[in-house]
């Protein structure tokens, strides 16, 4: 049952080439083969959002994508967007407002929040809640997460903090 394929992709700006098992999902590939431990497997059913990463600019559930299907793709993980500083304001807001507790959901939550703010400059609290509703957080109660995303949206628009 180990059919392997050779793939090449760009991960966090670096070109990599590996031989992968056809059945391996992207999260296992990132974690086991590339050592990128920032993306977490929470349910492996595509329901919790902990494994959210970016593929070719769109957020996906890393557990629902096979690595073998991503030959030629561009993948970005929390490590990559942290190094580039792209979501530094969101990360700072999560720290300042205690929007992360155990941190297991946080990388996926941040990438989903960044995805929302990329498409909508100033979402309402309801819109933030709706967009984040595929990312499970057991610790916070979500309130602080919504606060953090709302604050960053206002900040990016040059508005005063709520």
């Amino acid at each position, binding site marked *: 049952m180990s059919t392997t394929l050779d793939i090449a992709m760009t991960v966090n700006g670096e070109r990599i080439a590996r031989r992968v098992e056809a059945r391996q999902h992207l999260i296992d590939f990132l974690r086991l083969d590339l050592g990128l431990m920032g993306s977490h497997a929470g349910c492996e059913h595509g329901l919790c959002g902990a494994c959210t990463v970016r593929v070719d600019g769109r957020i996906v559930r890393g557990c629902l994508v096979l690595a073998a299907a991503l030959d030629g793709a561009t993948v970005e993980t929390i490590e990559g967007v942290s190094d580039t500083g792209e979501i530094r304001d969101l990360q700072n807001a*999560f720290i300042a407002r205690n929007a992360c507790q155990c941190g297991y959901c946080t990388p996926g939550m941040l990438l989903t929040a960044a995805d929302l703010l990329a498409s909508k400059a100033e979402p309402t609290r309801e819109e933030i809640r709706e967009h984040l509703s595929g990312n499970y957080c057991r610790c916070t109660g979500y309130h602080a997460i919504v606060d953090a995303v709302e604050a960053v949206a206002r900040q990016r628009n040059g508005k005063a903090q709520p």
Partner: protein
Amino acid sequence: MNEIIDPRSIDRPNSYIGKSVPRPNAKKLVEGRGQYVDDVVLPRMVHVAFVRSPHAHARIANIDAAAALKLPGVLRVFTGQDLAEHCEPWVAVLAHLKGMKSAPQHPLPPERATWVGEAVAAVVAESRAAAEDAVAKVDIAYEPLPAAVDMETALAPGAAVIHADLGDNLCFERVNESGKVDEAFAAAHRIVEATFHTARHTGLTLEPRSILADYNRASGKLTAYHSTQAPHMMQGVFAKHMGLPEGDVRVICTDVGGSYGIKVHVYPDEVAVAVIARIMGRPVKFIADRLESFATDIHARDHRIKGRMAVDAEGRITAVDVDDLTGIGPYSVYPRTSAVEGNQVVNLIGGPYDFANFRAKTTVVFQNKTPTCQYRAVGHPIATAVTEGLVDLAAEVLGLDPVEIRRRNLMRDGTYPRTSPAGMKFEGLSHEASLAKLLAMIDYPALRAEQARLRANDIHRGIGFASFIELTNPSPFMYGVGGARISAQDGCTVRIDPDGSVVAATGVTEQGQGTEAIIRQIVAEGVGVPIEQVRVITGDTLTTPYGGGTWACRGAGIGGEAALQAGIAVKQAVLKVAGAMLQASSDALDLVNGEIVDKASGQSRMPLVELSRIVYFRGDTLPPDLPRELMQTRHFITKQYPFAFTNGVQACWLEVDVDTGMVKLLKHWCVEDCGRVINPLLVDEQVRGGIVQGIGGALYEHCLYSPEGQLMIGSMADYLVPMAAEMPDIEVGHVETPTKESLLGAKGAGEAGTAGAPAAIMNAINDALKPFNAKVFAQPFTPERILAALGKVPSRWPVASSVALPLRTADASAAPALVTAPKAAAGTVREPGLFGRMFGRSRA
């Protein structure tokens, strides 16, 4: 002597206690640079996958691993018999829970599987994927046995007895009684009664249970990287049952991805991993997948409670009488036991109220389902739902507002210390102040006006209240007196390094609630240094003082006080050295912001870093007999009260769609009193997170079983959890009644939200449904159950009913206000299995 700085004087240097200081460990988490157990990779590491029982109860006749062992990458297959030789079984009872019994439990059962999902064989392979491939090839011959599934019939004549040696399926029984209950009911003006159900649910930590155990034969040492709340307890458990000296076992908690009580228990499959590591002499990793989590993480709160309350004509509670039944699975869970939840229920019911006559009985039974044990706010949400549900029923029959009946019955502020009818000792609570503060936050008259206005438009909103108490800072009365090696004390070592930086090693652990943040605040203030100079070490039995870990809301109250005392002790040590160096009395000096200063003038005398340089590198220049230990350890244990009780009150504002049965949460409020608030930012989100877990249990979460004991939830599509879109904004307020047992004055804050939320939601739903004379008492309050209460669909579930009885009243207008839910459809309706539901077959 150092005095604790009033947290309100926040302008003083180093006064961090009471301030919203961000967590020092948050940055690594937001950058994905945390390290959870699954992120740890060791040389020669192998992986375990378990073969799990598909039967609720079956004899294991034969295990044939030949085909599995032929697969590439597969190294070993272990059975229960294989591991039994290397591990003493455990029996989870506590001596102070009189008459409690349970059966010996092994890492893997040698003879019988007793719940669906129980691990019965372990496959070890070079990768988890290879191990899972091999699991499918292990051929196990089971002989199915009769199962005891329904807790209601577990003690009935003819019920299948799970452990023959125990004689029956009774684990524990206790009646907690005071006053003259029967006389009080006989003399009551009105009696209300109802049957409540709280649904079996689970913690669903996003990081599943995880362990990486490594046994080094050369050194004879076992190291376990373990996602746990109690590393020292686990050190003792591994040592005792594997026959190792405790000193040869090291437990390391790296980052823990959520726990909520789920990760404070001994799981047989995790012990199996440690035993396998010892047998194989190499690192062995096990990370549960989500299905394994549903089937084997502890479940909780599977209770049926019949409750009644007597009130007098003035609306005062005169008596409470409850009968609790709970099913805990086939074994009591080690070492805390599965009787504690029921025991807490009978200790906590009626807790906020001033009345004299009390009787609460709990019956804890074995059954062939996943074991249950302590989950966040153990017993509290059950006790609070029953108490607050009865209070609202009483208010209704008396024609009182829910706030008014609480005002008449809550324990008065300023009447402490006192003891509750259930025997709980309260040092100091603030029910009245908390309720007053809550009412100031919610604008109650405006909500009532809005409710009345919208009812005219057929929009049905309700407001529900729940006062509660919460048990925190447990003493040895919780577990230690029962014989469990679970530490109620905790320690902290604080040291100053040559560069003037401070390191604090604490026995309490971090699972995201902010333990490291508050220890850092407390130590910085205690020593007198900028907070940036303090680093905190947690979660390593080799490097931290012996302690209990973080559970039962003890991190701040117990661990925090040890940290404060250790910090102050280090400051005293510094000032002693400084006095000698500066030829001044150490009493005339202080350590502020990393500088030795004159206490009176505040004038700087010497930087701390200069003092530490002298101590570590030029000790020859100090007086020979001068103590210069810039490292101090202090331990703390509560002594006067078995528990530090906290209190609070919640309110929920919601809308019920009476056509669909859907509940929309509009707003939630909580005022809680956890004593000294160390970090408002952290406490508020603890309370909110707790409330949302309570909301989950109240509205969504249910570990469903078929009558045969098949678990019918397999993924988060079956087991619903609160997501952002359904959750309301939650406002949190505080009243502070510090405990006098410690200098710090902190009590716990982590469970208050969960304790009160389900009751507030239940009361709000029933308030919304008032025009329809419909009520719900069985959690989760699903649309189906609400529609059943409205008589719009037949009920397939235990239907809760409530009855209000008028007694001896001359007032003819007080006719029996019989409040009943529609009758249940006769007979048991069989649930389709998991796979039937997944493929959308219609329900039978």
